[in-house]
Every structure is written in C-alpha cells, then in structure tokens.
C-alpha cells in the first residue's frame, strides 16, 4: 500500500514562526547552510535549537556550576554523569523531567518519563538499579489534582515495576502553583565497571550506524510544528500523538544492549529521546568529530506514509542508535534476535562532519552536525528581581495568633500531604528488587548495598519551591544542603549530585532572575559542600495561563558509605535513649509549613543558611555515626523541630516510641516548635555515648543540645514557656493516614 509521496510544505515566515524559531535564528540557519533550509532541515534545526535540546536560555548560567572533583569520571555533556565509587565500580545517574506530557496524560506521561531516564543510564554501559521520583501537584482537595497524582504514581509504578528497576525513594509536595502544571522528575542510577563506560560518540569512517528497538511512529512530534494548513486529507492521522510506553520492550532493550556492550564491538551508543533520530545522530557525530549519513527508507516504521520530517522528529519510545565496528553487524543482529528485537543498519559514519539524511537516493537534509548539536544560540536573557518580592519578604510574622492546642497543630502538620507518610505511594513501587535496598523508603535517604563492594550508596531527592519563590538564592543553596544533609543522616558522605531545574517562561525577566539566583545558590552550596554537579535537566515554560510554578530545583544527591554497617535510619530505636540536636534554632517562620498549614500564609523570608555551619553539622553527624554511637539520625526540614522529633517517634509500621524533652532558650514557642532553621540534625544515642557525642560535636565546632529522652506513650516538647503534648498514637495516626485522608473522595474521574 503505497501512498503518494507528499510534497513538503514550502518554508515561509509563518512556517518558521510555527517552529518556534526567531528571525535571527532563521538567518543564522540560512548562514550555516549558505542557502534556505528545506522543510525537513527546518524541522531538524527547530528541535535541536529548541530550549529543551539546546539549553539556549540556561546554558550561560549552568556553566557556573562546579562540575569537577576527584571522583567525577564524567560530568555534564554525556547522557548521564559518572562517579567513581571505588572497588572498580562507577555510579551512573541522572534526573529528568516529564512535566508537560504528564499533565496531558498522567499515566503515560509519567511512564514514558521513567523509560526515557532509564535509557540514559544503560546507554552509558550501566545496569540501572534504582529510580527515585520527585513530584509536585496542586492540592489534593481538587479532583483534577487527585486524578493527576493517582495517574502519575500509577504510571511510574506501571513502567518501573514491569521494566524491573525498583523505585526506592523520592519526594512529593503539594501547592496551588502546581495545579495547572504538575512536576514529574525521575532519577535513575545504574552501576557500571569504572573502566568500561560507553559514550555517545560516532567514530571510525564507514562504521555502520544501527537502529535498534521499537518501530517509529508519529509519536510526540511537536504540536506547534505541525501547522495544519500544510497538510492534506490525511492530517487527522498526522496529529501529534501521546507516546505510550512499552516497559516490556525496554526490558529487552536493556538486556540486549548490555549484552552487546560485552562484545567489545560498540563504538558509540545513544538512546533516542527528545528529537529522536535527529538528536541521537547529530550529537553522536558532533561529539565524535565525524559525520553520519542515514537512509530513512531503512528505518523500521509502524505507520504508513510518514514523510522524512516525521521520521526524523518522531519521539517514539524504546529506540537506540548504535555505532559498531565494521564487520560486527551480524553479531549485533544475533544478539538482538535473541531478545526478539530488530537491529537494522540505517547508515554509516562519514568523515565530512555532516548529518546527511537520504530518503532512498534523494538527499532530504544535509547539515553540519556540530552546528546542530552545539551551534544553537546561547542567550543571556534579561533578568530582573521582581518588585513584589519585597512585599512578600517583609511580611510581619512577629505577632502570629497561637493555636488553641499546640499538639493539635503538630497533628495537623503531620497530616498535611506534603509532610504525611508517603507509604501509599512507595508501596505501589517495587522497591526491593535486586536485593540492594537495606534502608527502605521512608527514612531521610534510601541506602543500597552493592554486591562486590563493602559499602553502599545513599540517595535523596530534595527541593523546596516555596523557599526558592521567597528567596531564590537561599532556596537554591538549601536544595543542595538539604539533599546532602539527608544523605549524611543515612551515614553516607555526599559526593555528587544531579539536578532538574523546573521554572516558568524564561523570556520573562523575573523568571530568568529566579533561575539565575537559584543556580548561583546551588553553585555556592556545591562548592562549600564538595559535591560537584554531574548533569541534569532544565524544564522551562512551566506555566498555566501566565502563572508560573514556584521556581523548583530538584537535587538528587549521591552519597557513599564506606561500610554498610554505617547505614542509619531516622527512627528512635527504643526507650531510654537520649536525643540531641546538632545545630541551632532561630526565629525563622518565613516560608514554613507551619505558616502555610496553620495560618494559610506563604510569605516571609525563608530560613537563612550558613554553609560553613552546614558543612560542620553534617561532618559531625557522619563522624558520630562512624564512631558507632548513633542510634538514629534525622534532619529537621519541613515542619521544623517538632515534626522532625515526631517523625523519629513514628515508624512506617509498628509501635511508635514516645519522647519527652525541652528546647532550652528564649525563642517564642511557635519558632521553637516549627521554625525551619537549617543545618540541624537530631541524633539519638544510648546514655553511655552521650559524652562521646558531645566531645565530637565540640571538635567540629557544632552546637549540640540535649533535648530529652525517648520512651513512653506521649510526645511532650516544652519551649518558650509553652508545652506541646500529644499521644504518640494520635500523632502516628495523623501522619500515617494523612495522604489517604487528603486524597479521599477524590477518585471521581479526571476532574475535568
């Protein structure tokens, strides 16, 4: 059944505009080619020079982040970062967003997000061993948000479980600004041999370029680029479509690719993610300093009548492009046949630096690969501090009406969906596969042991959008510091991070200012804490009807444990232990969860952060853990000291442990209980280790305050002349059922 070949539309100024290219960008393209681009070439440029692929608005800022360190084997620039974790092993990890697709179709959007980030990891030669998800939604009281939340979690579960990569942790928060634009960021980590990392480079003249995996359909071709008037009677069929994930095929692809890598025949390999065949081919050529010639008639297709433009721009899932040594074609085919997958030679490596695309005999595109991959313009967009920030920051928080019952206020905080137990989420995820998870989700960081390594890894994802909204520089620092602190509480040394920067429209100066400030804050924190950035992802245009989300950087922190016996959890281990606070509490209620949940206000200045203090507190915590005197370690974050203490009392399952204590000092009670001052960690120790802990803290120059004792059935914290009291069982109930209670009555439909 052959269709008449469709004439390609003419490239008019309207068509250029519909591709999201400015006049200057079009002129630059014209200059590069020394002629006007064809329609296919225009499409190729438009995706490669899109914000998503080129980082044109963010690049100048990202370049300021520290990316080097003794453990870094691969920083930003490849599909994922690589960190030397000793004993011949490397950790390969990266985080990526799938926000917009998840809003359109939550299940498939989230599922394909998982599939995409997993490919980035095994592309590097690593076996993916875990996932973490960072999610943001509007309040669960709205049916639509409940629908998105349920669909996204089910989609992550549906894909991750089936593909066989356990989802071992993550985080989720709820706020109004995410109602029209939820965030779905997924981190994947894999383990590779440190001496056998693969890169996405095309080398060796004449080497075959092989397409492996699923067939190509019209999935995900960018809507804006499909101006309808240029199409004929088949345009309904050409509509951009939602991508559907196939975790089964991805599982086969993982196994087949890892098996292929064992043969020593692979020269370069890259997944087909955003911009599919276009991006993978020109990036491999550009990085390898070579060219690639493709014949599109050989590309396996799922749909009829696809034009070159569509084949090049399709974002069909579960596909890879591999360059192997000449002569290895049969070996490749045999391995993929074993896994029931197609492997087709679609082109070869050339020496002329061009991405040349043929449809049979006809050349449909011919572009210098480097111009596509690295030649996109970089913008230093105007950035202005918004005037409204002063009003927010200067909010008077000195005279808050105290709640009738401090214990009830604590219960309300524990039940608020952002703080409540997330078991309802993670029990939908296989989080134990591969027998590595020795600290299950629920504690500050997940801990994985590694077979063939005496130690292990700790991982945590963090990012407080409200802090960044109220002070992006401080918020950026805190995102890094808190992620590192979580990892330190688990007994691991933070060594490197990946990040996903979720922001609004970068052409608005206030958004660009938020972006620049957050990145500046992150960079300062990274340098202070010795945790370089190994890569990440930027997601811009997160807005609904001109209203941007909170600036939301998500930091995925990797920590290294020398020995797994150091793995530590946040829960009190029984009665009679002493509870200490490392660090200090200040009157900092701005941007706090208390202010939001109890007073319905989101304003003030977020807590300040002293990086030297942060570093010392974390070092002291790790030293105490290594010295063997720590029974539990938990950082204080959203909800402050009272929430952190209560969280330590309440295990995910089983009997809670009570606590009685006092925070000495002169703070007013709300600040003592709920201020979110940074650089604080709660440690519980046996009484006989109290002296050792106090000495250690002194050595590190860190304030160390005895708060109280574990045990009993009640939770009592006194401070500032007030007493906060509650039954631990009541607090446990509030915390454990919070999420379900908020989501109840909310399962009706799509809420549309």
């Amino acid at each position: 059944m052959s269709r008449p070949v469709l004439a390609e539309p003419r490239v008019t100024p309207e068509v250029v505009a519909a591709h999201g290219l400015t006049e200057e960008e079009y002129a630059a393209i014209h200059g590069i080619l020394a002629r006007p681009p064809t329609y296919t070439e225009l499409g190729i440029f438009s995706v490669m020079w899109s914000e998503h692929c080129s980082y044109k608005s963010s690049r100048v800022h990202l370049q300021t982040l520290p990316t080097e360190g003794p453990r870094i084997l691969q920083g930003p620039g490849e599909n994922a970062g690589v960190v030397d974790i000793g004993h011949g092993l490397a950790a390969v990890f990266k985080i990526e967003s799938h926000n917009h697709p998840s809003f359109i179709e939550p299940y498939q959007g989230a599922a394909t997000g998982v599939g995409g980030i997993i490919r980035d990891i095994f592309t590097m030669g690593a076996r993916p061993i875990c996932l973490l998800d960072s999610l943001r939604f509007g309040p669960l009281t709205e049916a639509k948000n409940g629908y998105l939340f349920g669909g996204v979690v089910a989609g992550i579960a549906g894909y991750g479980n089936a593909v066989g990569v356990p989802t071992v942790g993550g985080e989720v928060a709820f706020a109004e600004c995410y109602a029209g634009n939820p965030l779905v960021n997924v981190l994947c980590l894999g383990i590779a041999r440190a001496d056998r990392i693969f890169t996405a480079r095309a080398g060796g003249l004449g080497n075959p370029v092989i397409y492996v995996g699923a067939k190509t359909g019209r999935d995900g071709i960018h809507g804006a680029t499909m101006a309808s008037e240029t199409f004929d009677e088949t345009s309904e069929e050409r509509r951009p479509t939602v991508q559907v994930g196939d975790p089964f095929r991805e599982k086969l692809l993982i196994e087949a690719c890892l098996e292929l890598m064992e043969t020593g025949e692979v020269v370069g390999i890259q997944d087909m993610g955003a911009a599919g065949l276009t991006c993978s081919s020109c990036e491999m050529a550009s990085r390898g300093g070579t060219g690639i010639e493709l014949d599109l008639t050989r590309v396996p297709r799922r749909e009829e009548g696809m034009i070159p433009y569509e084949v090049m721009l399709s974002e069909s899932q579960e596909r890879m492009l591999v360059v192997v040594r000449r002569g290895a074609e049969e070996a490749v085919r045999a391995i993929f046949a074993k896994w029931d997958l197609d492997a087709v030679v679609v082109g070869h490596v050339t020496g002329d630096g061009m991405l040349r695309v043929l449809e049979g005999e006809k050349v449909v595109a011919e572009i210098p690969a480097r111009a596509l991959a690295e030649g996109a313009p970089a913008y230093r967009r105007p950035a202005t501090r918004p005037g409204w920030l002063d009003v927010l920051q200067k909010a008077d928080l000195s005279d808050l009406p105290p709640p009738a019952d401090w214990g009830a206020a604590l219960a309300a905080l524990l039940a608020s969906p952002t703080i409540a137990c997330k078991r309802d989420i993670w029990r939908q995820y296989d989080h134990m596969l591969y027998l590595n998870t020795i600290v299950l989700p629920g504690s500050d960081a997940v801990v994985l042991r590694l077979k063939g390594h005496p130690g292990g890894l700790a991982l945590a994802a963090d990012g407080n959008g409200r802090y960044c909204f109220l002070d992006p520089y401080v918020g950026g620092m805190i995102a890094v510091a808190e992620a590192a602190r979580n990892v330190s509480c688990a007994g691991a040394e933070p060594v490197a991070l990946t990040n996903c920067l979720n922001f609004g429209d970068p052409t608005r100066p206030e958004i660009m200012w938020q972006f620049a400030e957050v990145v500046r804050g992150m960079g300062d924190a990274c340098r202070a804490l010795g945790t370089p950035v190994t890569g990440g992802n930027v997601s811009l245009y997160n807005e609904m009807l001109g209203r941007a989300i909170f600036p939301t950087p998500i930091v995925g922190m990797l920590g290294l444990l020398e020995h797994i016996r150091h793995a530590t959890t946040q829960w009190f281990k029984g009665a009679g232990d002493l509870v200490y606070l490392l660090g200090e509490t200040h009157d900092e209620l701005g941007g706090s969860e208390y202010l939001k949940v109890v007073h319905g206000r989101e304003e003030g200045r977020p807590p300040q952060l002293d990086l030297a203090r942060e570093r010392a507190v974390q070092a002291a915590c790790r030293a105490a853990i290594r010295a063997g005197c720590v029974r539990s370690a938990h950082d204080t974050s959203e909800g402050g000291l009272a929430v952190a203490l209560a969280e330590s009392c309440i295990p995910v399952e089983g009997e809670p442990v009570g606590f009685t204590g006092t925070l000495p000092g002169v703070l007013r009670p709300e600040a003592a209980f709920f201020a979110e001052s940074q650089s604080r960690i709660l440690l519980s120790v046996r009484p006989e280790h109290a002296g050792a802990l106090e000495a250690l803290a002194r050595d590190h120059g860190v304030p160390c305050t005895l708060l109280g004792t574990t045990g009993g059935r009640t939770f009592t914290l006194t401070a500032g002349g007030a007493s906060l009291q509650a039954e631990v069982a009541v607090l446990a109930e509030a915390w454990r059922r919070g999420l379900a209670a908020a989501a109840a009555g909310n399962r009706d439909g799509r809420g549309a």
Partner: protein
Amino acid sequence: MRFGILVFPGSWSHQDFRHALADVMGFQAQEVWHKETSVTGHDCLILPGGFAHGDYLRAGAIARFSPVMSEVVRFAERGGLVLGSCNGFQILCEAGLLPGALLRNASLQYRCQWVHLRVESTATPFTAALGPGQVLRMPISHGEGRYYADPEALRRLNGEGRITFRYCAPDGAPSAEANPNGSSENIAGVCNARGNVLGLMPHPERAAESLLGSVDGRLLFEGFLARASR
C-alpha cells in the same frame, strides 16, 4: 542440589534467586533461557518473578507457551521439584500445573510490602521441615496476586492439604487486614497433588539475608535440602 532458574523475556527476579541460592546459601544455580528444550541436570526448577512478555493479556498467559515449558511439565510429572514465585506462580497456574488463577489485586494497585505467612501444610518438600502454623515473614511485590479458585476446587485443596501458605497477622491469624490482595481464603501459596510443585506470590529470595530484614525465605530451601543430603 542443583537449581535451574528459568528466564523468560521480562523476568526480573532470576538474578536475585541466583544470588540467594548460590551466593548466600551456597547451592549450584544456573539460569535456563526460556527457549531451551531441555532441563536435564537440575534437581529443582525455579520460575522467578517479573513480567514475562510484559504480562500483557494476562500474567503468565504467554510465558506458559515458551518452548521450555513443555519440559517443565514433563519434569514435574516425573516428580521433579518446581517452585514458582510471583510471576512464576502465575505461569504455573496458566500452564495448568497448579489449580486456580491470579487476578488483579482487589485494591487495583500494585503492592510491594512485607507480609506474614502462616505455614498451612507441610505436604510439600519445600515446607516439610517447617511446623504447621509457623509464621514466616517475606516481601510481596505484585499487581495480580489475588488467588482465585472456584468453590469446588477450594474444597478439594483444603481437603487434600494443598494450601501451603496463608497471609496472616504477625500472630498467625489469617485476618482480612492481613490479606494484601484479596485472595480467596487469604491463600498465598498452593501445591499440586503430589506436592512437588509449589507456587506462592511472596518472594523467598528477598528474605534470605538478615541485612534485608528476614532469613525466613531460606527455610523453604534449606529444610528439604538438609533431608535430601542425608
């Protein structure tokens, strides 16, 4: 004792079984690709967890036609030991080696969590060394684990002592709250009439090291092996 661990496209617990059986317990364990047509050289076959063929259509429905499966049936008929966990249990039911079927969890959600199991019957070599009523702790991880058999079949299974495990509370009571997926009569595992084929939804391989929270999974293997080697 030599274990053969079947690998279907989409299996994912085979590595874990190999680790538990070989690295932790010290047995011989070898993977068997689903396209193989012989299973000789193995004393016990393991059908591991995962999503064979994506679990598309029904869990286990396509895998049961894999070339190796006719050999598994013959092996079982000759009295060879076969254990299916999770997806492996689903495949054994689809293949007719075990009665009943596994339906979507009553919650309609996937469940990965620790559960308690009460040993109901010691009529299979896998539980022969355990005491009836003994409570084990192991993880589950599945979306389709709701055991169903028609009333007549259930009567027979009960009568013949072929219900091997029931989900229970830590004290051994098979309560509704302890049933993670809505299985009939809290059934977590059943065996065939001869007792040499066992299927269970929980993952014994995930409970083989104290570092991971339980070593109860080892009891299924170490018990009968101790006897066999005597």
